[in-house]
């Protein structure tokens, strides 16, 4: 009995393969996008963890200069001779042909044991690293890019991509240096050593960082991705829900028969559950495969974005990791059960022999729609309240979630209201029928239309944010990168030569002096600048006191960047604790896009008075723009400066904009995919509706309307619904953009952006929406146009 019943239930799918395909593809798409995003996040996180663990940085204390100077080589020897178990590290970046690499030089003799993978206990012997062998450890991916280099490479998966690990002597040769950036401190030290505060008062101990700066900095980026992944999943779930609901309704007769034959309701429900689990398993596996391909496709862009934004290195290739594979399948199950839950619930309470008629279903949905409208209103109010209260990044995303869900739930009600208005304007019986029939269609299509609305709103919102950001960013770059050349020296002696050399060739050589301080427990970069028109005329200030530049020039005030301003909750005029025993009034706030950390700008001389040891190496150089490249060449050829030490304004701008565009490439791709899913949802719904609607269309055909004009009307109706949906999506999208710009960006990155609107993009989206809906309607309409008259007649034969 149970077996036969199960077979009877399953036979539904045999007769409706398209519906089965819709269900599985819908669930697989939803799972796929979600899994893809998770796979990207997982790959990036594992890469951060590897970077954080490189050389034991996650477990080992460091000793570094209090003012950010390098540590002389003999300081290391002196500390060892005093008994301290320390080990030196030199770090730097290097351009090798096409790629930039991070070089880490280590002392293989004194490396603490936890600083695997190298050293006496690691996979290579000491001798391989020194005495002319100069072994360099690299990730296999990096090695592939360096094959033509004259380096003794050995691959190691322990090394982060984009990094080279070598002995101090080899690293020094590559970086052209003779000193260290910091000393690693072994976790256990012998007793009875002289305290470091006595023998190395200029060095500070820095606690190990189990998470790593990178993971922290990129958190908001990954949260963004996750939010989009979730949105895609939600859109996909709408499809599944609609399809499963429909399948339930269509199988009402089968179920009625099974029940009449004596099968208990519980058994029927269990059988349907088993069917769901089976389908979810198939769809989940498909989704994970799909997710893998999506992630593999997007990962190179994400990697480039992360490298540009945060300087992190994530491999461009994807590893299969059980975490996202299992989550993917689990979420497919969760989604399917969520979608089937409502149907099962309704069925469990439905009268035994309730008639299965489309109109009855629609009427039931209509009654439901009052509740959904109420729920929508509640969600929108919640969203408003949260926007009012504000607070955190999570709140930001919750606002987005409630706004989108609320708007989606409100959509059917809005559409029906709009259609009622339309019906009032109807002048002929035919027109009245068209309006009424559209209204009749809304419940069946509502989930697909909701999905379309979400996709459109997300497109408008994200597009507006990205374009607003880009506009602001481009203008800001022009202001911020006002100097023609940025030049750094390798040593103080070279810096002096450099200044002497430039004094005759440049209009101005502006010192850039910087050191790291701690404000409110977080690292902040403190800059000293000289008074110059370059700053007075160009620097992008968001807030300013009167005479702001005079006050900075007099050493009577500090400028801070927007990130620090917002994070610290400061107001203009507050006093900022710059360093122990030094506070400065905040006289201005400047925008500082793309920078994850806080910044403070003070008078150059005041900074150098306070931190006399800051290296004097970096300079901004003002020259007539047409002479910039000649001066840069002269610096290389006459002064012998490495080209890597010179950055010209045009290159810097181009690089920044490239990074910017790549950053939002991924968002754009996810957006397009979401829109694609919504289109598919409409197709799925129209397909299933088309068979059911035959009984409603047949009388209209019978009174003389041709099949062709019926098909035309059908197409028009779909397009009209798409336009109406777009009209609703527009304000929702703009609200979304506002939330992104004014709440999410502020919380995630620490800057607020002005909002610009781009009506041409909206029209483009309208066209896209109509194309998507039109394509989705094409098959059902074509089928309608080809329906044999006999089929129409059968409706009357089978009239229930």
């Amino acid at each position, binding site marked *: 009995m149970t077996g036969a019943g199960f077979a009877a239930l399953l036979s539904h799918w045999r007769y409706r393969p398209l519906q089965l395909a819709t269900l599985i593809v819908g669930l697989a798409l939803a799972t796929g996008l979600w899994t893809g995003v998770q796979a990207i996040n997982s790959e990036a996180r594992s890469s951060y963890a590897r970077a954080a663990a490189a050389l034991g940085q996650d477990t080992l204390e460091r000793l570094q200069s209090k003012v950010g100077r390098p540590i002389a080589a003999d300081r290391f020897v002196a500390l060892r*001779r005093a008994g301290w178990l320390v080990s030196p590290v030199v770090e730097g970046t290097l351009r090798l042909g096409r790629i930039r690499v991070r070089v880490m030089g280590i002392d293989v*003799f004194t490396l603490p044991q936890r600083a695997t993978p190298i050293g*006496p206990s690691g996979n290579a012997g*000491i*001798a391989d690293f*020194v*005495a002319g062998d100069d072994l360099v450890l690299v990730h296999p991916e990096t090695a592939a890019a360096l094959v033509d280099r004259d380096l003794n490479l050995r691959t190691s998966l322990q090394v982060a991509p984009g990094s080279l690990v070598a002995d101090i*002597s080899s690293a020094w040769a590559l970086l052209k240096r003779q000193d260290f950036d910091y000393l690693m401190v072994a976790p256990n030290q012998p007793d*009875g050593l002289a305290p470091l505060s006595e023998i190395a008062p200029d060095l500070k101990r820095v606690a190990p960082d189990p998470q790593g700066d990178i993971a922290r900095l990129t958190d908001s980026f990954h949260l963004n991705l996750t939010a989009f992944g979730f949105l895609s999943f939600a859109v996909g779930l709408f499809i599944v829900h609609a399809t499963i609901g429909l399948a339930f309704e269509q199988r009402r007769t089968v179920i009625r028969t099974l029940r009449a034959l004596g099968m208990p309701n519980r058994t029927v429900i269990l059988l349907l559950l088993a069917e769901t689990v089976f389908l979810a398993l198939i769809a989940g596996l498909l989704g994970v495969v799909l997710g893998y391909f999506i992630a593999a496709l997007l990962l190179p862009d994400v990697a480039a974005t992360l490298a540009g934004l945060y300087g992190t290195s994530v491999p461009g290739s994807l590893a299969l990791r059980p975490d996202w594979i299992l989550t993917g399948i689990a979420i497919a199950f969760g989604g399917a059960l969520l979608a089937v839950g409502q149907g099962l619930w309704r069925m469990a309470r439905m009268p035994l022999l309730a008639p299965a008629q489309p109109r009855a279903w629609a009427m039931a949905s209509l009654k439901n729609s009052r509740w959904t409208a109420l729920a929508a209103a509640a969600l929108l109010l919640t969203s408003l309240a949260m926007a009012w209260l504000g607070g955190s990044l999570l709140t930001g995303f919750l606002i987005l979630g409630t706004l989108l869900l609320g708007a989606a739930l409100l959509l059917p009600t809005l559409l029906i209201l709009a259609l009622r208005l339309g019906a009032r304007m109807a002048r002929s019986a035919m027109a009245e029928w068209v309006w009424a029939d559209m209204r009749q269609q809304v419940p069946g299509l509502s989930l697909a239309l909701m999905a379309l609305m979400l996709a459109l709103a997300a497109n408008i919102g994200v597009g507006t944010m990205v374009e607003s950001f880009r506009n602001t960013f481009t203008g800001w770059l022009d202001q911020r990168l006002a100097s023609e050349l940025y030049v750094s020296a390798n040593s103080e002696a070279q810096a002096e030569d450099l200044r002497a050399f430039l004094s005759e060739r440049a209009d101005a050589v502006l010192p850039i002096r910087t050191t790291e301080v701690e404000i409110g427990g977080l690292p902040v970069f403190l800059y000293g600048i000289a008074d110059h028109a370059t700053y007075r005329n160009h620097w992008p200030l968001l807030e300013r006191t009167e005479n702001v530049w005079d006050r900075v020039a007099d050493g009577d005030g500090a400028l801070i960047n927007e990130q620090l301003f917002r994070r610290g909750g400061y107001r203009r005029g507050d006093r900022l604790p710059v360093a122990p025993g030094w506070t400065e009034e905040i006289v201005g706030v400047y925008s500082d896009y793309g920078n994850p950390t806080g910044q403070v700008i003070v008078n150059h001389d005041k900074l150098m008075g306070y931190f006399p040891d800051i290296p004097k190496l970096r300079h901004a150089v003002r020259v007539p723009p047409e002479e910039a490249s000649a001066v840069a060449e002269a610096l290389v050829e006459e002064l012998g400066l490495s080209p890597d030490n010179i950055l010209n304004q045009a290159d810097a701008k181009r690089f920044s904009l490239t990074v910017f565009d790549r950053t939002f490439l991924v968002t754009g791709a996810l957006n397009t995919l979401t829109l694609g899913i919504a289109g598919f949802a409409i197709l799925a719904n129209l397909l299933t509706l088309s068979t059911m609607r035959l009984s409603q269309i047949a009388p209209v055909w019978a009174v003389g309307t041709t099949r062709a004009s019926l098909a035309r009307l059908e197409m028009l109706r779909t397009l009209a619904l798409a336009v109406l949906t777009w009209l609703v999506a527009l304000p929702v999208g703009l609200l979304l953009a506002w939330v992104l710009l004014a709440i999410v960006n502020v919380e995630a990155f620490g800057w607020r952006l002005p909002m610009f609107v781009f009506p041409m993009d909206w029209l483009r989206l309208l066209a896209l929406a109509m194309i998507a809906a039109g394509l989705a309607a094409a098959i059902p309409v074509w089928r309608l146009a080809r329906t044999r008259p006999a089929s129409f007649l059968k409706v009357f034969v089978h009239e229930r």
Partner: protein
Amino acid sequence: MSVRFLALLIVMTATGALAQGFAGLGTKSEGFSVPEPGHTLVFPDDHGPHPDFRIEWWYLTANLNDGNGTDYGLQWTLFRSALLPKADNGWSASQTWMAHAAVTTANRHFSTERFSRGGIGQAGVAANPFSAWIDDWHMTSRSAAGEDQLAALHVTARGLDFSYDIKLTASGPLVLHGESGLSVKSASGQASYYYSQPFYTVTGKINLPSGQVEVSGQAWLDREWSSQPLDPDQTGWDWLSMHFDDGSKLMGFRLRSRSAETYTSATWIDPAGKATAYGDGALRMVPGPTQRVADREVPTVWRLQLAERDLDITIEALNTQSWMETLVPYWEGPVIADGSHRGRGYLEMTGYQ
């Protein structure tokens, strides 16, 4: 001699070491000098390093007692290993240094190690005035200028859970092993330069987790350098130095081989410091019952016979678990002798898998 060959191990990867005899001591010596017969050692110069030889060590072992008569063993070793046969040059590390320190009691064994490259001052040896150091460990001469630089020493070392600070005074002359300091290690002629100062009396302090103890006793310093001291077939060795109660001393070793008989060598030193060398076969070293040490079987009891000196003794480890948990591990610890002669000394065993 002794382990001491260990120095080379830092040159080798773990697999390389297994493939080429213990700690890579069977490797070839291209470009390096090799010990030659007829060479005369010159002091104080030869107290200092010989960068054109591949390996070298300054190896001190001491048998000590505290006021209650409790036995202690103490080790301080500095190994030099050359990657290239030239003196140090900045950070390029043609010379490398490794040091071991240990303290042994009847039931505890403390050991630690340090590494450094040459040429940067973190580790090194100066001949006159004599000083050998790595990090804050050192072995420094307390002799006046013009005297033998090894006649009086100050030695310190420090690990995470132990440290010591001892002063040594020699009551006898330096002793050259083999033929005027040329000590042959195999039938095929591998050899090293090898001399000792076995006549130290020691006073000083040892710090252990249980507290500080004042100690005194005897110590033995070995100086040895070579470029290829082992035949490639030789897999390890058993070496010992003995202070007998009558004032005489014995150095002996046995080299084990895959393909040939074991190779033995000995030096008998009378209380006045007169040395007599004995070639292969004169000294008989027979391992007794083994102990489970660090997951392997190691003989911690030996029978030693040297017929020419009417010597027939059994030596037994003070602590059978005197295992050096260092990069390349080995057994090194104090022993007590009974039989025709009574006394104490140090035993070293390497190459036990």
